[in-house]
């Protein structure tokens, strides 16, 4: 529904909204290239795992060849500040890694409408477990950097080809969606490094 191809040579500012989690990284990989990754930092009573991990987030995007900017959003003004920021960047397209949460999609559609941009959601409607396997199959190595209590034993562990099935089974056994779309876990998805 949202993924379409931009003709080569057309000047666009394609912005990926990313927290360096496995889904946003895979969304970037799916669309091929983005001009800029934007990391929005939200205010929480406690620092979110993604704030703790901001250094790795910047590093990962730069290694993917994607410039990255970080923007802190004030509590209560998140949407308006997101819109203003994307306008200032003269964004033409937004890439996001939502999969099934309708509220998230509607929020992104509002942002796209307000900014006059096209929304690209390349992962939307994918089968959750299949998507997890595809991500791992594409050499994304998500490391769990924050989890709900039920997944505590997986904290600090990298999901790889050799443990992804066990992980997915474990998630299902404790009643958690294996993709963690509702924030059941957060990942850092550093890409494989080319040895220098």
């Amino acid at each position, binding site marked *: 529904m949202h993924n379409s191809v931009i003709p080569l040579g057309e000047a666009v500012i394609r912005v990926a909204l990313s927290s360096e989690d496995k889904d946003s990284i895979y969304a970037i990989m799916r669309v091929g290239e983005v001009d800029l990754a934007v990391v929005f930092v939200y205010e929480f009573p406690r620092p979110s795992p993604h704030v*703790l991990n901001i250094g790795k987030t910047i590093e990962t995007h730069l290694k993917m060849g994607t410039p990255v900017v970080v923007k802190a959003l004030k509590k209560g003004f998140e949407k308006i500040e997101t819109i203003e920021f994307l306008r200032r960047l003269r964004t033409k397209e937004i890439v996001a890694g939502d999969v099934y949460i309708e509220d998230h999609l509607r929020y992104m559609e509002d942002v796209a409408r307000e900014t006059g941009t096209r929304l690209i959601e390349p992962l939307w409607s994918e089968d959750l477990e299949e998507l997890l396997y595809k991500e791992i199959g594409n050499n994304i190595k998500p490391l769990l950097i924050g989890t709900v209590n039920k997944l505590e034993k997986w904290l600090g562990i990298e999901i790889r080809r050799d443990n992804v099935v066990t992980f997915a089974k474990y998630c299902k056994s404790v009643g958690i969606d294996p993709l963690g779309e509702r924030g059941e876990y957060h990942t850092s998805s550093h890409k494989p490094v080319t040895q*220098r």
Partner: protein
Amino acid sequence: MSYINLSSCDCIALSAGIDTSLIAIIAKLSGLRIRGLYTFFKDGIPRDLVYVNYLSKVLNIPVTFIPIDLEYVKNVLRDVYSCIDGKAYHELCIELRNDVVFYTTLMKAKEFGCKCIYTGSGGDELFAGYSFMLWLHENEIEVYREKWGISGRYPELEIANCLDIKAVAPYLSKKVQEIALQIPAKCLRGECFEGKRILRNIINKFGYEFVGERIKAPAEAGAGTDSICITP
């Protein structure tokens, strides 16, 4: 490696930065059973937390996470200051917000009965880890390394002395210093102007790129105390 084998410490002040990660990896390769200690400011943003968690899991090192708050910092600040004997090297509050982290880690190590504890002291000086070193001319880096890598001041070692716990700094061993200083400065700086390239490559070779490629976080940022600035 031989130095780490010889000292055989059972504890490590683990920040999971480049220096302590490599020590932890070598200690594990040497078959040592070590315990990690990581102190962090719970009201700050402790950037090392994610990496410490990771290293603990992949190396199977039990880590004790020691959260501290502002009240605690205020309470121990005078003791920390007396330990370093007023020899603040940087601006006082910047030094103390680092020192309070080591003080806490070392106190806890003593409480645990650690035989000795590894620290990453000297890694930044010898292998060009400080961000300001990355912009220096190669000759200037060499001068800095020789001066500070050999005879630098390491408050964490002063604090260990003060608390009467044995801290072992492998990077400050004579053999490591000699080898390190033979490595040309150009080999220490990566193509993205990151420091300690040679140590990073070793870590990557063992398969731990997540720490091997991490962006430099000064000690106070790693522990999250960079958001405070108080003096006794």
